[in-house]
């Protein structure tokens, strides 16, 4: 079964707005990673957050991790049309491999 599940499945916003998506997982992790996939392309790594970290930033991206709730969130501030993509969380744990969620499809309209 899937380790990570994203919510919402799809998100439609206007340029300039913030986009927030959540990821929940089931078992203890070593780290959690967020990836972006543009249509017809490969995945691109965005941020890796370790289990002992609570928040990380990269440009307009902010990731939080709450290990007590087994959840993470990805916030994209001041979204742009180029942010239109699918966003995946992936967890690394004792099972020794990266397990991906089903993704959140984000559409940013100009």
């Amino acid at each position, binding site marked *: 079964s*899937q380790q990570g599940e994203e919510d919402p499945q799809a998100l439609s916003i206007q340029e300039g707005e913030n986009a927030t998506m959540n990821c929940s997982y089931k078992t203890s992790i*070593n*780290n959690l*990673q967020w*990836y972006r*996939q543009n249509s*017809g*392309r*490969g*995945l*691109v*790594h965005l941020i*890796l957050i370790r289990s002992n970290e609570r928040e990380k930033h990269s440009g307009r991206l902010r990731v939080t991790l709450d290990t007590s709730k087994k959840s993470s969130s990805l916030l994209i501030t001041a979204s742009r049309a180029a942010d239109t993509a*699918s966003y*995946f969380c992936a967890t*690394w744990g004792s099972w*020794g*491999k*990266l*397990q*991906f969620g*089903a*993704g959140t499809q984000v559409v940013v309209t100009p």
Partner: protein
Amino acid sequence: DTAVSQTPKYLVTQMGNDKSIKCEQNLGHDTMYWYKQDSKKFLKIMFSYNNKELIINETVPNRFSPKSPDKAHLNLHINSLELGDSAVYFCASSSLPLHEQFFGPGTRLTVL
């Protein structure tokens, strides 16, 4: 200066055929992976190699056979292709297994 490359990008073939997908990375990474992404975009790992040694072999039909001739290459050979093999296959690499992964552009396989 492509980091992870795959060939071909598209592969259309008949049921029962045998085909190969090639992957190369120029990042100097020790670990490489094959993933399968289905029509619902769910991404599942198939195989992982570390320094040419197989370290992950998921529940994949033995019609799928990975081969790593050296650290920079991981190829995927598929025998007796079936309709259900239609998917996008991604190669990826990382410096260590739990680090961030770099993905290739994908190979869209269509079995008719």
